[in-house]
């Protein structure tokens, strides 16, 4: 009789523990999702009213004049991303190829360590580095300098992800290709990289999404510009910079525009991530 009760008590206690664990896990999951929901909600409430056609097509208006937009900043952000990709994609992808296909054990250890350290370097440091390397040398802020700073941030990100997706390609494909008398280089480009192409594109897109919102590295490289940029060796506007300068201004109208800019930026990054999701789903279904 006694033992039976103890058994039931144990059962109750176990169920309580299980319920507690579920609740803790559920609350933590909510805490993960809540910030995203809050940010989106707040951005929509404060920014949606200022997002209109002229926001995408017009230049900023002078202080006191209502209306205007951030067309130059949106275009500038894309130009900067393009420049960053020119630097970051080839170096990052082929660095990843080296790690996965060529490197020696010790060399790879060093390279991975360096890449991981670089991944952790605060982005403003990149701005300072490029300021010293480029801006001072050429005596002026420029789109090139901004693109270079963003590209530097992309390199280690792309390199590590590319390495990982290349290592996912089964060794059997490399062997099959080499056994056909196909050279190592062609095997890597036409067989291994082609098999992992979606993964590599994903790596590039994630890196682009990451640097699209960077402000600090642009502060003393791209600098910002209230007008269209007609020459990449001149300062250029970028969405994050524009948001920054509008948000710290004392004008209500500019605050609204900053909210709108933030909304547009977040939606852009959100869309990139959606594309990545779509690509990786395909990749997992097909290759793995």
């Amino acid at each position, binding site marked *: 009789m006694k033992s039976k009760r103890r058994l039931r008590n144990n059962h109750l206690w176990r169920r309580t523990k299980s319920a507690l664990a579920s609740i803790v896990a559920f609350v933590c999951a909510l805490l993960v999702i809540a910030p995203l929901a809050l940010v989106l909600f707040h951005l929509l409430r404060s920014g949606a009213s200022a997002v209109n056609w002229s926001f995408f097509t017009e230049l900023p208006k002078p202080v006191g004049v209502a209306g205007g937009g951030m067309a130059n900043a949106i275009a500038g952000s894309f130009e900067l991303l393009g420049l960053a990709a020119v630097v970051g994609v080839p170096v990052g992808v082929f660095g990843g190829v080296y790690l996965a296909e060529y490197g020696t054990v010790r060399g790879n250890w060093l390279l991975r360590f360096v890449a991981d350290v670089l991944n952790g370097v605060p982005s403003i440091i990149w701005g300072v580095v490029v300021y010293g390397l480029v801006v001072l040398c050429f005596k002026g802020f420029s789109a090139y300098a901004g693109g270079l700073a963003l590209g530097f941030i992309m390199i280690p990100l792309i390199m590590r992800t590319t390495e990982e997706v290349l290592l996912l390609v*089964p060794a*059997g*494909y*490399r*062997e*099959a*290709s*080499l*056994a*056909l*008398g*196909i*050279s*190592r280089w*062609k095997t890597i480009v*036409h*067989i291994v990289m*082609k*098999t992992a*192409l979606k993964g590599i594109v994903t790596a590039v897109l994630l890196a682009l999404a990451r640097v699209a919102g960077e402000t600090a590295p642009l502060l003393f490289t791209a600098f910002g510009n209230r007008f269209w940029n007609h020459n990449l060796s001149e300062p250029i506007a970028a969405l994050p910079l524009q948001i920054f300068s509008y948000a710290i201004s004392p004008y209500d109208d500019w605050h609204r525009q900053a909210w709108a800019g933030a909304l547009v930026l977040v939606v852009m990054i959100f869309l990139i991530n959606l594309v990545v999701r779509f690509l990786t789903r395909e990749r997992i279904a*097909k*290759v793995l």
Partner: protein
Amino acid sequence: MESAATIDPPMISPVSPPPQRGTSHVQTSEVASERPAFEVERLSIFYGDKKAIDDVSVGIPSKKITAIIGPSGCGKSSFLRSLNRMHELVPNTRIEGKVLFAGEDIYAPHVDPVVIRRRIGMVFQKSNPFPTMSIAENVLVGLKLNGVRDRAFLRERLEQSLRMAALWDEVKDDLHKPGVSLSGGQQQRLCIARAIAVEPEVLLMDEPASALDPIATAKIEELIHELSANYTVVIVTHNMQQAGRCSDYTAFLYLGRLIEFGSTTKIFSNPTERKTEDYITGRFG
């Protein structure tokens, strides 16, 4: 970029000295008098400090099927891979001795392993059609990546290779479909078609049927038999019935050493070595 149509013609050496055999206990007297495709002389293979193959000397006859049997870990695959230098993909590999292919040392310093592998093709245990390519692209990839552009020639090689691999009738209407959409046995025949499309002189097969069901295995064995009319075939198998069924010659490897080499009939009915007999009759391994 050389076109595959002109890839190294088979080297014919009219005067062939009798191959030197290093170890005396190896029975090779029955091997045909024609010059062997491979003359392996005192070959040892090391992975780091580990010796995978120990002082093996053997002549592998041309245009015949030679089976390599032996218990797991005896060095069968290492030996096979050393015949087209595929084992070099493993870091820290080293060989001693010589492998002559058509009289030429494939490990000579000036020899490019890429060229060797173009002449000596390989089929693997696990079928591995390239997942990004269609059936046709899989067959033709070796030619295309070696610079063959002639469309008529490619089309002809496509059909010819698939016919030789006994796959043409099954896939001729689906050539654009992904290679990985085929069944396991078909995929393995696709890999054979891909290997013979580059017109090698030798096919090395590393347990090509061990992942297949009995019907697909029978098809592959029949195919191997047909291929031996034109190719030297070396097949590694852990299935002794398979070696008995489909090979002309058999080599028995044990702990990295070649215990016995001879005609399959002799090895299976009247082996010289006690160890061979024990293995064949299933007393160990």
